[in-house]
């Protein structure tokens, strides 16, 4: 391949990634030359500006037709664009949280690194969203994972943070091994790492029973391996410990950006590879993805039950939100299981809604946690009396997480719910588990509400909300309510610009 040929590619479509990479590099250099005593917050704001710039440049490509560079190792299709928006907005909010995070437990020394590691993690996630080749997908995944490992353990003097980093690394390693094992089978069966070629080869393979069997085995290994990123059963158990130990902005990052990236890669791999293979030798047979959807459905159901039921027993709010985040991943898996006409819309919308409601909730958890010095649920007692607006904000976000009408969470659940009914045969069992576990979730969500509104406050001290945090709070509440009352904003955006993701496999 000649140089001209390389330069022929339309590299400009990578502008958002280049911006993030550039800003990360810039931050690391600035961090090196800045005097030690200087406040690193300015670096955080530069990072925020960088993400904003990347978002704008991504918006500039919104009408760009499917473009691919170097045999799909990078491709910009509507799927990539739509989900990159979520990743970027999520990271933007998370970085704002990080700016206002109190630098303690040895974090002060690494304040600069703290900011740009978020950017490299985001970079990994963005590559995951826009790749048509397993190698890029995997490297993006690893970049995201390794950056997250460091971020989780960054508060070195906090024993819980150390412990959780260790757990995250070990579990992450195992999950990567399982994923790779699964992917290597698919590679072995097709002889290529390009997802499109894989799907083509598999479709025409006609496959002996034996090969299909192996492919299905690969399906399970990949699914379970990647479920680590989603924190769904059976790879969910790390989540509570890690969420509790990690610094709050990192927790928010794991539950929003990292989870979104997990869904992106799962949808990309499963829909394109397993969605096109006939489950039996016959050409007109059901695709393997649909053939095996009961297994995904089983995992989704188990995830919802585990997440919501164990959350009932938590006293630590970060642990509670860890289980709640497990449960929400389960809801999204329901959408993925049903593979209806709505699936892409439902997953995208739910992730967007989840982004808003969860980031706002973590902003408040960070604020209250720093003030009270503990994440125990009793720290929220009488919040309404101490800071009425903060309490109402939290209440709105919690109502949304619980899925009460008028909030984004409800529309998200409604979408998933309708999707589950829309297919033939309909997924009545899954839909009922979704509803039943949602009811269970009211107990713990309303436990927090009861604390805030119906308990006397321990002290009357007021809160001092930093600017960055205020931006997050306003953004998240406006997002939650706007998407709840006028969800068409999001759906119109999706339909006008992304054509139902029809170019997924082009």
């Amino acid at each position, binding site marked *: 391949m000649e140089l001209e040929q390389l330069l022929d590619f339309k590299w400009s479509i990578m502008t958002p990634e280049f911006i993030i990479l550039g800003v990360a590099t810039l931050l690391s250099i600035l961090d090196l030359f800045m005097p030690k005593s200087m406040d690193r917050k300015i670096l955080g704001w530069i990072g925020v500006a960088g993400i904003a710039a990347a978002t704008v440049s991504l918006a500039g490509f919104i009408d760009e037709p499917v473009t691919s560079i170097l045999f799909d190792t990078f491709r910009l299709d509507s799927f990539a664009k739509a989900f990159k928006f979520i990743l970027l907005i999520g990271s933007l909010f998370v970085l704002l949280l990080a700016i206002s995070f109190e630098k303690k437990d040895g974090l002060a020394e690494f304040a600069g690194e703290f900011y740009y590691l978020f950017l490299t993690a985001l970079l990994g996630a963005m590559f995951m969203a826009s790749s048509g080749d397993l190698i890029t997908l995997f490297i993006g995944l690893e970049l995201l994972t390794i950056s997250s490992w460091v971020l989780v353990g960054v508060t070195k003097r906090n024993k819980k943070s150390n412990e959780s980093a*260790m*757990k995250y690394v*070990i*579990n992450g390693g*195992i*999950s990567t091994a*399982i994923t790779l094992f699964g992917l290597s089978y698919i590679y072995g069966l097709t002889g290529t790492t390009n997802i499109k070629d894989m799907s083509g080869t598999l479709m025409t393979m006609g496959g002996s*029973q*034996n090969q*299909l*069997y192996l492919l*299905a*085995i690969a399906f*399970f*290994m990949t699914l*379970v391996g990647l*479920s*680590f990123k989603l924190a769904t*059963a*059976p*790879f969910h*158990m*790390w989540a*509570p*410990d890690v969420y509790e130990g990690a610094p709050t902005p990192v927790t928010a990052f794991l539950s929003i950006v990292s989870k979104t990236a997990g869904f992106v890669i799962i949808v990309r791999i499963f829909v394109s590879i397993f969605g096109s293979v006939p489950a039996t030798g016959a050409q007109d047979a059901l695709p393997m993805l649909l053939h*095996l959807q009961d*297994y995904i459905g089983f*995992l989704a159901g188990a995830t919802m*039950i585990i997440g919501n*039921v*164990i*959350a*009932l*027993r938590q006293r630590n709010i970060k642990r509670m939100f860890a289980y709640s985040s497990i449960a929400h991943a389960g809801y999204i898996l329901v959408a993925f299981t049903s593979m209806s006409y*709505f699936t892409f819309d439902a997953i995208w919308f739910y992730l967007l809604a989840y982004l808003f409601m969860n980031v706002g909730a973590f902003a408040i958890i960070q604020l209250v946690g720093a003030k009270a010095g503990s994440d125990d649920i009793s720290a929220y007692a009488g919040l309404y009396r101490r800071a*009425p607006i903060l309490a*109402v904000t939290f209440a709105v976000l919690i109502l949304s997480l619980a899925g*009460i*009408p*008028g909030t984004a969470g*409800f529309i998200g659940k409604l979408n998933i*719910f*309708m999707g589950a*009914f*829309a297919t033939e045969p309909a997924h009545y069992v899954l*839909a009922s588990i979704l*509803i039943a576990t949602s*009811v*269970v979730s*009211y*107990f713990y969500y*309303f436990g927090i509400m*009861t604390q805030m*509104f*119906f*308990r*006397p406050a321990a002290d009357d001290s007021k809160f001092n909300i930093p600017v960055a945090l205020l931006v997050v709070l306003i953004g998240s509440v406006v997002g939650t309510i706007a998407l709840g009352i006028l969800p*068409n904003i999001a*759906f119109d955006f999706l*339909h006008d610009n992304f054509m139902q993701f029809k170019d997924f496999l082009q």
Partner: protein
Amino acid sequence: MENAWIIPLFPLLSFLFLLLFGKRFKESSAYVGMLLTFASLVYSLLVLFERFSSPTYKQEGVWLTIGDVQLTAGFEVNQLNALMLVIVSLVSFLVHTYSKGYMHGEERFPVFYAYLGLFTFAMLGLVLSPNLLQTYFFWELVGVGSFLLIGFYFYKDEAKAAAKKAFIMTRIGDVGLLIGMILLFWQVGSFEYDAIFAAVAAGEVAQGMITLTAILIFIGAVGKSGQFPLHTWLPDAMEGPTPVSALIHAATMVAAGVYLVAALFPLFTASDVALTTIAVIGAITAIFAASIGLVQTDIKRVLAYSTVSQLGYMMLALGSAGYVAGVFHLMTHAFFKALLFLAAGSVIHAVHTQNIEEMGGLWKKLRVTGPLFLIGTLAISGVPLFSGFFSKDEILIAAWEGGHPILFLLAVIAAFFTAFYMFRLFFMVFTGKSRSEMKNVHESPSLMTLPMIVLAVLAVVSGYVNTPWFGTFLGDWLVEGNEALGHGHVEGPAWIMIVATVVSLAGIYLSWLIYGKKSLSRNWLGAQTLYKVLYNKYYIDEFYSMTIVKVTKGFSHFLRYIDTYLVEGIVLGVTAFVQTLGRLGAKLQTGQVQTYSAVAFIGLAILMVIFALTGGYL
């Protein structure tokens, strides 16, 4: 009518305004709330009058497009909506006014008014909704408002528990509603009431599906309207401030379930099974709650059980295809029950207790509240010429004509109970010896009595809009232009009215003998009962106390046991199960990273083994 959408916005404005600036206004927040709800009331009245002369108005816009499915939002003014608008805004306005006096001196006064505004907004929005989805939105919002108001006295543990219980119990019903709604959507392709009715009328939906969805939706109504077996939250909800009980747990929110069934009436009439279910549940609830009401000693709990029982009546009416009877009773009940609650609040305000055993002889001290309470009691007991008489009569006729003689009998017995325990309440509170510790009893301020007077007038006259004697104006108007709703007035045998009268008078008389004149022992279950009865010269009274009363008393206790142990027991059992599951799950979460990986790996292995064994590839 084109601008009817503005009606709910007034209270919303009140809510937002008081949330932001309430602290500055202190107790003058009340005027903000009153003014804005008054605006709603005026507008609702205008809409109602306009609706008399013009047809149903409906306006909608596309709200959400998912694929090729379009969901709409908008509002509709039909007869039922217009009537409900007036009921809700009127009661809300009166409660706003009343609370100015009742909540005087409360520290979080503006918050209370803000919550009231939120609730009124949700309730009015619910009433205006032209489709199921929008109804569901406001349905939930109403629940949230009720949650906040019940728990208003958050320093009381009972209030906290009651708020949570109310919210979660009604949510259980809502699950039914949601599932029914979505099933219906997939059958019909729309959430619109009109579209649903059209599809049902055209026979596009299978009969079994109609029954299933109708019953699921009815489950939602069961939760909201406190029908058996999801009724237990309603008496507990009495922990909230009394004006709230009047507004939410008497006149509006609990009536939402009845409203929902009424609004979807053509769907229900398409399935006999669903109708019968409603009628049976309604009748059971009516007699069940009424019999429990016989032995309660807390003034508000008596009223709460009577509310449950009256709601059962309405359901019975609807289930017997008595659309007009149900809606009519919904209206009259809203007035006299709100009156009773406000009057009870006035009593509590004066004597600072809710236990009726500790009251007595208040008639002379509360010269305004007393007669007003009496009017309410007469109305609910179904004494002729009061509003409750006419609406209850309609229900009894509907039940009889609907071909449910057993349910009719139950309704008659419940009517007897109602008259009995309501007058028991009245006599124990207002007659007899006045207690020494109740020296400083004062009548409530006029801010509180005026709303009661308005309601008392309505409790008397509102029955005359639909009577067999002076014309069935309301009924004719309600069903105008919609055959599916049945007839405006159903002619029933004349003896039903006589039976109803006799039964209610008998109940009052018995009550008077026991609690008013005290010629019968109050302690009718004790050993000395028999002894005292021998000295009693009224053979008929003896008969009552020996047979009916004793049996019913025992029955009542029996039912209360069921209530406490069986119904609550099931609820507790489910809770305990979920809790145990949670405990087991949390136990597995040892903190050992090896366990986590092991679980993941074993999970993978299990999936793969199951697949290998059942996948059919080997």
